[in-house]
């Protein structure tokens, strides 16, 4: 249903994405994991063309086989309002602070010609579906009267309200406490399964991605370095960067032991070397890693893995 075909993105001459190739099937959940500057957020935003001014893309993002860059204004609007919904990191920044929760939930429906009473009824139902009781009172409240976790559930309810086939979730729980995160993620999982909606889930937490998604794509410096089934995260991770991420977590070793860290700082697409993006930090790097860029073979991009 969704295809990234060698997507490259530059913003004002600065490279952000260096060739992203990925497919998301209908109803499938794909996790996009990486550190800051890896380009995971821009990858997802390119689906709905929410790109900064001065962006230039090469390659294609196809939704239902249609290149989104070829859509005209009306087509883009139709896709945004009916087919794809987005959930952001900070719900407080995303819900208009001077309007009511009810306004936020119903405005897209109203724009699509749904009557006021009907829109309100559907908004109230959507709230109860994401576990918010007392929906009628909530509809009249304003964002500052709700906690962050509650507000993120409102955002999810709004995303589900128009019956999309794909939800883009950009670190939807990073700003939340861990117990709230569990509830929000559980609701997202449950509603997604019930409605057969596809999901792209951005996070920096590998374990969280594994719990939410069917497949995980690991990004580094504007590239996807490895794609693997969520169930095989621990046993099946092969790319040195994925392994490094897994080993960097404090839980990876027994308490008191040293964490197996990789030296240096995360690269961005701008500073990426000519060869493998991870070569300068990789503990196993060889001469060819620094010179020749490895090809992504559908599961990983690494010279060392090709050899085996």
């Amino acid at each position, binding site marked *: 249903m969704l295809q990234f075909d060698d997507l490259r993105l530059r913003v004002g001459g600065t490279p952000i994405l260096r060739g992203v190739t990925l497919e998301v099937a209908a109803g499938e959940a794909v996790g996009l994991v990486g550190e800051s500057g890896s380009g995971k957020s821009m990858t997802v935003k390119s689906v709905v063309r929410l790109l*900064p001014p001065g962006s230039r893309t090469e390659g294609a993002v196809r939704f239902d086989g249609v290149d989104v860059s070829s859509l005209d204004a009306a087509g883009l609007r139709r896709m945004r309002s009916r087919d794809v919904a987005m959930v*952001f*990191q900070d719900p407080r920044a*995303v819900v208009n602070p001077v309007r009511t929760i009810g306004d936020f939930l119903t405005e897209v429906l109203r724009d699509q010609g749904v009557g006021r009473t009907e829109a309100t009824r559907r908004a109230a139902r959507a709230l109860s579906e994401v576990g918010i009781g007392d929906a009628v009172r909530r509809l009249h409240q304003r964002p500052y009267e709700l906690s962050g976790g509650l507000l993120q559930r409102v955002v999810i309810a709004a995303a589900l309200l128009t019956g999309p086939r794909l939800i883009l979730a950009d670190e939807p729980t990073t700003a939340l406490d861990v117990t709230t995160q569990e509830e929000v993620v559980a609701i997202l999982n449950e509603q997604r399964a019930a409605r057969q909606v596809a999901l792209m889930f951005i996070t920096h937490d590998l374990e969280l991605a594994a719990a939410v998604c069917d497949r995980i794509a690991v990004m580094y410096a504007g590239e996807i370095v490895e794609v693997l089934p969520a169930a095989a995260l621990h046993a099946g991770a092969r790319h040195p960067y994925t392994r490094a991420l897994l080993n960097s977590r404090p839980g990876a070793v027994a308490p008191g032991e040293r964490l197996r860290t990789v030296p240096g700082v995360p690269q961005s697409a701008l500073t990426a070397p000519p060869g493998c993006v991870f070569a300068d930090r990789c503990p196993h790097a060889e001469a060819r890693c620094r010179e020749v860029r490895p090809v992504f073979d559908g599961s990983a991009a690494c010279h060392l893995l090709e050899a085996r």
Partner: protein
Amino acid sequence: MSAMSIPMPLRKPAAKRGAAPVAGLFCALIVLVAIFAPWIAPYDPDALDPLNAHAPLSARHLLGTDDLGRDLFSRLIHGARTSLAGPLIVILAAGTAGAILAITAAWFGGWFDALISRTLDVLFAFPGLVLAITVAALFGSGFVTPVAALSLAFVPVIARVMRAAALRERNLPYIEALRVQGFSGWHICVRHLVPNLAPLLMVQAAIGFGYAMIDLASISFLGLGLQPPAADWGLMIANGQPSILAGFPQQSIAAAVAVVITVVAFTAVAERLATRFGGDHAPVR
């Protein structure tokens, strides 16, 4: 912050980047002209030549002469002195007082902050022009009275912006880290807080300079500042007003253009500083 804010293009349009150095050069030039006025001006600005009144623009009199035959170009050059010195004094006085009040208020907080803030609010309710006119009525017109009144009126304008900034700065973790280190409040203020606020104060002063210049010129124009025969831009505009109707607009127009160009130049420099160091514009009053 959130990952989704779309960054604004950082590059300024080429035209604006090109304008700032030109404006800066002009500011430097006008200051030099003011300092060396007696050596630059071709004529004595007060020399009367009634037979040659309202002379047109010519090689002898670049901008012509006024109703009393005085050389307008020379008067314009001499006028730069009071026209620049006034705002300069206002900004130095109000900037110093405003910054000290703002930083002490923000630093000590509590009732001290409340006292200073409320006092500034009351003072802020007096528009600079009204304050200057009232003071002129009390103590008479001249150079000192309006400058003193405007200095007072500009204190709350600068202090408000600086207090907000100082409050923001004071709550940053690096200040708290210094407090945990055991540094004295005086050390933190003088060595860290003040130097970090200095760029904003510079911006405020540069913006305020333009406003002070306009206000002082307004007071001169109203006849409550410098008195004839002084060569001052605001006064020249007022003095030239009757001649406009007679068809000789040079005096008013020349002085008006001088005021506008100077204010534009200083404001352009201020805005360049502001985009470089951040900070808000002072509210107009």
